[in-house]
């Protein structure tokens, strides 16, 4: 029966091609705009490591100025980064299953077989657990062991992209490269990996891409590398040597721990609190105690990854869709009632109210589906345009909002959902109205 109704639907479209085009166009535009904003919103509000949502915790402590809060918008939060000395101390604990302290550093890399020229590489000085903790996939080799952090051993892990640049993508494990003028041995090459948002370091733009080289954290002090990410200081203290900087109350370290259960979480919290009390007694931590263990999901919310602008745009796009659908309801109603004479004949010949309702709903469904397909194409084009806009604003470098503007499965799913919504919202009332018409009146007027 549905097949027959679909044929009727196409017949009906042909009767009023202009009107049909207007309705399909309105639905398509409404769906396109919603798919675009929802695709971005979905990418933005996702938790890229959801399967470890109850195990990974960002570690923060409030060491800030007694007279001034770190973030005026969120006075209850500790600074999102740690001091070197506090993170170093907490990282000695054996309570967490895994732990990592790290920061972003600049580097110049020379070597490789494909690319001989020295070039800039954004790197990360991090601890051994980094790779296992965040489930980072390796293409070749592996990460380093904890002992390499302290030495520190001259071992380096490079990204898929950097391996392409340096070695044309071959297995480069065991090769040497110059990293900031020091010889390093490649022990691992990552597969392509780019979690969005970049939950483990949101300080330099939440949609940044991961670094292209990773070295043991001990190289930070050993080569006296300052953070290439943000580093913030509040205390009037001289910082005239790297040692003074390391011992300062400046924050620039990201710290994460993996705590498998509530018991270990509690134990680590107590450990932090104990450390805080000792330091507080010694005159540090002048503000109220905020020793925070924040799971990834909450972390993304606390750090304001989803911007208000995007919420406004989602609201706007649904208002837009509403207008498009209301538009369609009005047009459909007029159209159906105009065809009442035909419907009257069908009713007189024995079609039930339900069948008439069914027939008209199918017609709207077909309309909405065509609209959804068109809308999907439009949204793919639209996202492509936005992507190009953002990419050009970043000089073609990766990272930023362009990472969120990929047309993906989420887009398709949203289009399907919206097509169903459109059918129901736009079609139910007109189809119901036409089904309730008394057939006799319309037969008479013939």
């Amino acid at each position, binding site marked *: 029966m549905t097949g027959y109704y679909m044929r009727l639907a196409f017949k009906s479209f042909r009767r009023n091609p202009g009107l049909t085009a207007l309705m399909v166009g309105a639905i398509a*535009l409404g769906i396109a705009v919603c798919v675009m904003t929802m695709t971005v919103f979905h990418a933005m509000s996702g938790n890229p490591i959801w399967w470890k949502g109850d195990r990974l915790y960002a570690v923060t402590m409030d060491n800030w100025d007694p007279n001034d809060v770190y973030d005026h918008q969120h006075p209850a939060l500790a600074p999102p980064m740690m001091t070197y000395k506090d993170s170093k101390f907490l990282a000695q604990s054996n309570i967490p299953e895994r732990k990592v302290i790290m920061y972003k550093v600049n580097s110049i890399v020379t070597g490789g077989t494909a690319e001989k020229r020295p070039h*800039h590489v954004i790197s990360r000085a991090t601890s051994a657990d980094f790779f296992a903790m965040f489930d980072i996939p390796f293409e070749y080799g592996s990460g380093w062991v904890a002992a390499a952090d302290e030495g520190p051993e001259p071992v380096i892990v490079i990204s898929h992209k950097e391996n392409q640049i340096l070695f044309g993508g071959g297995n480069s494990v065991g090769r040497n490269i110059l990293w900031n*003028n020091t010889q390093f041995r490649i022990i691992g090459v990552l597969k392509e990996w780019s979690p969005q948002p970049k939950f483990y370091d949101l300080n330099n733009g939440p949609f940044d891409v991961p670094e292209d080289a990773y070295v043991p954290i001990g190289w930070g002090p050993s080569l006296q590398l300052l953070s290439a990410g943000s580093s913030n200081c509040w205390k009037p203290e001289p910082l*005239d040597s790297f040692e003074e900087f390391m011992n300062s109350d400046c924050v620039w370290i990201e710290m994460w721990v993996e705590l498998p259960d509530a018991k270990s979480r509690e134990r680590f919290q107590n450990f932090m609190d104990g450390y805080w009390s000792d330091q507080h007694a010694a005159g540090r931590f002048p503000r109220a105690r905020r020793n925070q263990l924040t799971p990834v999901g909450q972390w993304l919310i606390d750090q304001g990854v989803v911007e208000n602008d995007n*919420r406004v745009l989602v609201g706007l796009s649904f208002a837009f869709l509403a207008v498009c659908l209301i538009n369609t309801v009005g047009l459909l*109603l007029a*159209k159906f009632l105009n065809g009442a004479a035909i419907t009257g004949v069908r009713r007189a010949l024995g079609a039930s109210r339900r069948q008439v309702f069914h027939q008209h709903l199918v017609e709207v469904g077909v309309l909405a589906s065509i609209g959804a397909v068109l809308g999907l194409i439009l949204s793919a084009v639209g996202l492509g345009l936005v992507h190009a806009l953002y990419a050009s604003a970043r000089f073609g470098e990766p990272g*930023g909002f362009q990472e969120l503007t990929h047309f993906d499965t989420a887009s398709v799913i949203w289009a399907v959902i919206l097509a169903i919504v459109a059918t129901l919202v736009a079609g139910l009332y007109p189809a119901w109205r036409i089904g309730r018409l008394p057939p006799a009146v319309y037969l008479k007027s013939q």
Partner: protein
Amino acid sequence: MVAVRPILSALLRNRTGAVLVAIQIAIALAVLVNAVYIVKQRVDRIGRPTGMDTNNILVVSSSGFTRDYDTVGAIRNDLEYIRGVRGVIAATAINSVPLSSAGSARTVSNHPSDNPSDGENGQYIEVDEQGIDALGLRLVAGRNFRAEEIQPPVDKSSTSRFESKIIVTKAIADSLYPGQNAVGKPVFDILKHPATIIGVVERMQAAWPDYTHIDSVFLLPRLPFSYYGAMYYIVRAQPGQRDAVARTLEEHLSASNPNRIIDWIRPLQSFKDRSYGTDKNMEYFLVTVTSVLVAISMLGIFGLATFNVSTRTKQIGTRRAIGARRGDILRYFMVENAMITSTGIAIGCALALGVGYYLSLQYKLPRLDLYYLVGGIPVLWTIGQLAVWQPARKASAVSPSVATRTV
């Protein structure tokens, strides 16, 4: 005079279509008014004066990478070359790229204070004696740095060094010394190092669009320290020469020193564009969606009216036959639309205010300015009338003879 009552009673007899149009108008008004208001704020934000000659400035990024790279020597050689290039007005070395959302800030106070948040927070920029000219800043009091006052870069053993002479923006001068001439007055950093204000520039925008002290910048007379590997040159070209200068510099600088890499040479404007990218995108999106929304509403009204006219041809013909003039028919549809639109606008005003209030509450946007609402009403009203004009004309053209024919 048009009789409103028959139109109204006809409308009430067949409400649904009218209600749907009114709702569309209401939503369109609410969206239009709030969108225009948000866009206006973004345009203002992007349009805040930078104080710099943004359009004619190039930024060069240079990274020395050998172990004992001679930063000072490289800067001297590079600047000597750059300043000699045809079309260059002035050039300076600088520690961070203006307007790029990256840079460092410090707090300065008008008295030595133990409280680190006491005073005025500002971005600090390291420049030489051509800094003011290279950035295109306007000196409004005091004097510029002299060549012999330019200090060597700080290094890892003297990071907290302050300089004895500084130039501040008017915003800092007014904050530290309100109502006074700041030139010659002392300032102190948080370690209580003193300095003297030797000059005041009218304005220089700090690097971060959301910074609360957007015009608070102070200039220090010293060469930049390439902490993070890279340092920059600011090169101001004569109007129209920017891109030609960029090509010349690119060729020469890349080859001139094997111990460093020239990462890029880019117009300063591109950094501003990137910093304000989300604002710009919000503008594009809001303008596009709102225009399409208004267009769709208009098309919807037009489509519905056209449809109604074609189904009512016989009634219109009958009215014409019993004495209605063309103008009466035309006016009937125009007035009908005006009534529906006005109802929609009334609902839309409430909706617009509600949405505006919600946005201000939830997203800390400023409260909707009522002028925008007042401005939006005639726009929507006109749109309604325009949309119905053509179908109404068509209706008025229906011949009275239609009434005499059978369907």
